[in-house]
């Protein structure tokens, strides 16, 4: 069935504590702003002046007062960037002419767009002097709402005549709901959220004596950041070196490179001093790409027994002012539209639209949580319409278990899955029937605090991209004469624990203790190729590459050892206790890898290629208590089954799930980026934007199953995003379910107390009329 042959009883599959932690815990990791490096001595401090209006022509920029202030080294505007190429669309499918310039050129299109860069001798002076740069704006009409933007009445790029970035029409067919006895439709807002990694964006850069730009930038893959910076600056890739410091969270928003980092690089090149930049949180909230931001129109049809026959989804994607990754999120949403369900008829379409808001990018799950949210809410609407239990309706429509790849009606090649097992297992773990009984009791008693139960079943894509866009990744393993080893990886951790897990994988093959294995990444001189970390790809491709390289290193060592010991390679076996090779049946006869490395460099670089993406799956149950008098919802339980194939380090895999669960629940309960009608952000600090805290989430209840994939020898799928995919609709549905008996069918996210209370009241009024 699969190529999995993990020797159990080994270090793999065990809860190994992270090797990176002692440093993180006792001195803190070295993030970009922490770097102390000779090459950065005498750096100028860069402070960006950002647009304070959402849409305007720039009549003039007056930097004279700033330049006259002591400590001001210079002020850079778009007019200075004469040697950078015209901005190019990030994806070929995007409308040309919408790409973001490094600094606003003639017009600003969102609050927070970088307009000028102020260079000062110190950080504190930067904030003072940036305030004195005077920009004269001539206001233009603002469009914030994507539905309004789609009418093309207010245009961000008048010369293009449309706000549409890209789109896909539904296949022209007949009425897919013609045979459906029951058809339900609804509009679902998958709201815009802040990615909000705890570390904001930063950069440090120097133009070196080697005539190259060396830049320290927090990122999710140095090679992509290198290509991005080189492209924006018009430099050959070889003339840019990226060094990746510790990265304080990314969640999709640190992929590639942002315009600000390119400006910092430009400054370092042109003014003859290194340059450093660290944004503030308030800047980050408007300057870093946002996530989600879809308006979904769903229609679902079937029969009264609960069989779903047809599903239509139109996604209106708010791409923000300039299309980044966000504009193509709907392609992933549509690919995963039917999710775990066997639905005969699909009708899928999308439009990505530009608005006067911060550009939208990838955020944990990137397009797949949106797909799951849409179909799961649609399932609930359908179940409510026919009066059947939402879990039962789901079970009736699930794809049967499969171990060989199948092609979904959405066009995705699912590798392996058992969705019924996932649903039944999580329902049992949650005591679903008991919860329903408790709910019935509270409803009967008319309690002020009602119970709601939400269920979701999901499948998602992981490892879809990769090195140079293919499902492949490289790794280098080298053993040193002192017996230690170094691994180079093209993946790029920012919290996921690669230093530990990659060491476990190499230790498993060689017997070298994990404490003696150093993992390195993120320096493009050291690792010129690599796909980085994103899309939950690292273990299944980067980890598989480490295992492959380590095995090949053992093979190389075996050949050399055979020569040295004058035995047949077949007579040699790995001596795990001594980290070497031993002659089978001859005690004491052997050679260590260290001894072989002392003779000749012992190093193998290997590229692992996967047949394609893998498709983890799972099912979540959320339990919410809702105070029907105030509308306040509290998440009391979240029970999650996430099956990502074989788990190498459960401690770390569970941590990935916890984080995803909290972020997913936070979208359902709390978080939303908001603008007023003039395009001014109203949630641009952590005081206004409700990042979930420890008091709004419970301890999570995890259920683990391991359905291996055949696509890599570890049997592993990705786990980084799973938690955030199943939890959002489960939590949202739990809140709605708590007040369903009052006549409420849907409440948009975040399910704030005001929204819940308003929905109850609207249902009451509806019932009275």
């Amino acid at each position, binding site marked *: 069935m699969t190529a999995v042959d993990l020797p159990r009883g080994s270090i793999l599959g065990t809860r190994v504590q992270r090797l990176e932690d002692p440093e993180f*815990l006792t001195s*803190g990791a070295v993030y970009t702003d922490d770097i102390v490096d000779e090459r950065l001595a005498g750096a100028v401090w860069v402070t960006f002046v950002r647009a304070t209006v959402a849409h305007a022509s720039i009549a003039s920029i007056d930097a004279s007062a700033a330049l006259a202030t002591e400590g001001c080294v210079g002020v850079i505007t778009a007019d200075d960037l004469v040697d950078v190429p015209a901005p190019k669309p990030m994806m070929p499918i995007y409308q040309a002419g919408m790409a973001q310039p490094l600094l606003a050129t003639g017009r600003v299109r969102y609050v927070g767009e970088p307009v000028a860069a102020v260079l000062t001798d110190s950080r*504190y002076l930067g904030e003072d002097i940036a305030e004195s740069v005077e920009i004269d704006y001539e206001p233009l009409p603002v469009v914030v709402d994507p539905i309004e933007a789609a009418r093309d009445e207010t245009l961000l790029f008048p010369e293009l005549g449309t706000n549409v970035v890209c789109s896909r029409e539904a296949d022209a067919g007949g009425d897919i709901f013609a045979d459906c006895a029951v058809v339900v439709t609804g509009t679902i807002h998958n709201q815009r959220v802040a990615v909000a990694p705890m570390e*904001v964006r930063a950069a440090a850069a120097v133009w070196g004596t080697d005539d190259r730009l060396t830049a320290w930038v927090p990122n999710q893959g140095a090679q992509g950041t290198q290509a991005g910076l080189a492209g924006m600056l018009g430099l050959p890739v070889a003339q840019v070196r990226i060094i990746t410091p510790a990265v304080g*969270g990314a969640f999709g928003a640190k992929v590639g490179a942002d315009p600000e980092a390119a400006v910092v690089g430009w400054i370092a090149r042109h003014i003859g001093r290194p340059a450093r930049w660290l944004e503030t949180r308030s800047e980050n909230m408007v300057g870093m790409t946002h996530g989600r931001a879809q308006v979904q129109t769903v229609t679902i049809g079937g029969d009264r027994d609960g069989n779903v026959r047809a599903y239509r989804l139109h996604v209106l994607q708010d791409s923000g002012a300039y299309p980044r990754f966000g504009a193509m999120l709907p392609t992933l949403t549509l690919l995963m539209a039917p999710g775990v369900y066997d639905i005969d008829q699909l009708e899928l379409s999308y439009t990505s639209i530009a608005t006067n808001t911060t550009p939208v990018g990838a955020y944990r799950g990137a397009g797949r949580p949106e797909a799951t949210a849409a179909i799961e809410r649609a399932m609930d609407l359908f179940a409510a319409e026919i009066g059947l239990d939402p879990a039962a309706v789901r079970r009736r429509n699930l794809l049967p278990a499969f171990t060989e790849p199948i092609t979904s009606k959405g066009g995705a090649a699912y590798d392996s899955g058992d969705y019924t097992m996932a649903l039944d297992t999580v329902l049992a773990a949650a005591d679903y029937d008991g919860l329903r009984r408790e709910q019935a009791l509270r409803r009967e008693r008319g309690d002020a605090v009602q119970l709601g139960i939400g269920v979701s079943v999901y499948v998602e894509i992981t490892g879809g991209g990769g090195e140079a866009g293919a499902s492949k990744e490289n790794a280098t393993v080298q053993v040193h004469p002192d017996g230690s080893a170094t691994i180079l990886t093209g993946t790029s951790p920012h919290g996921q624990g690669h230093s530990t897990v990659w060491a476990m994988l190499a230790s498993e093959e060689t017997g070298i203790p994990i404490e003696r294995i150093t993992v390195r990444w993120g320096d493009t001189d050291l690792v010129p190729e690599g796909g980085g970390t994103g899309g939950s790809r690292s273990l299944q491709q980067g980890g598989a590459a480490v295992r492959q390289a380590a095995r090949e290193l053992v093979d190389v060592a075996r050949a050399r050892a055979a020569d040295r010991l004058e035995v047949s390679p077949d007579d040699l076996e790995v001596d795990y206790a001594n980290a070497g090779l031993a002659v089978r049946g001859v005690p004491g006869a052997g050679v260590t890898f260290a001894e072989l490395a002392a003779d000749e460099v012992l190093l193998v670089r290997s590229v692992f290629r996967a047949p394609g993406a893998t498709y983890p799956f799972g099912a979540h149950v959320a339990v919410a208590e809702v105070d029907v008098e105030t509308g306040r919802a509290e998440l009391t339980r979240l029970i999650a089954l996430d099956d990502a194939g074989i788990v190498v380090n459960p401690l770390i895999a569970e941590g990935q799930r*916890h*984080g995803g669960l909290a972020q997913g629940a936070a979208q359902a309960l709390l978080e939303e980026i908001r603008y007023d009608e003039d395009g001014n952000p109203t949630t641009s600090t952590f005081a206004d934007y409700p990042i979930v805290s*420890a*008091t709004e989430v419970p301890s999570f209840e995890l259920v683990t199953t391991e359905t291996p994939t055949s696509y890599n020898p570890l049997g592993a799928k990705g786990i980084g995003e799973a938690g955030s995919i199943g939890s959002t609709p489960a939590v949202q549905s739990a809140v709605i379910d708590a007040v369903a008996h009052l006549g409420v069918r849907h409440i948009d996210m975040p399910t704030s107390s005001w929204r819940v209370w308003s929905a109850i009241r609207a249902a009451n009024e509806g019932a009275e009329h």
Partner: protein
Amino acid sequence: MRLSITVNGQAHTDDVEPRMLLAHYLRDVCGLKGTNIGCDTTSCGACTVHVDGESVKSCTVLAVQADGAEVTTVEGLAATRPGPDGMHPVQAAFRAEHGLQCGFCTPGMVMATAGLLAENPKPTEREVREALEGNLCRCTGYHNIVRAALTAAESMAASE
């Protein structure tokens, strides 16, 4: 303005601008980069240090306001109660329970937890969550941070 302060047991005297934040003083003048800054609004707690034994957010304290104070940062915590692995029991518990991922909130989270346990040595899960309400983490979902705090409480009680 003249500032005399003890940081991690070491006396410092420096001339600083009155507006210099304690967090920047620790990072840029003392060179202690473990204390991170994650927001502008006293919301995230990444910059939490102890001033005279109490947890405070060092982004909202002027360095000059800490004149004469004893400050402990994450770099100095272990020395106040070193364990067998060279870490403070709270640090060791964060590692054992995988209470950190990207590590950015971690110094503040560790200092807030140590501060909590100094005031309430045997907290309940609810008390831990409420005590950490001013410390934001985007990676862990708080699950293992809460476990770490409870584990640290147990190990500190056992070694009393």
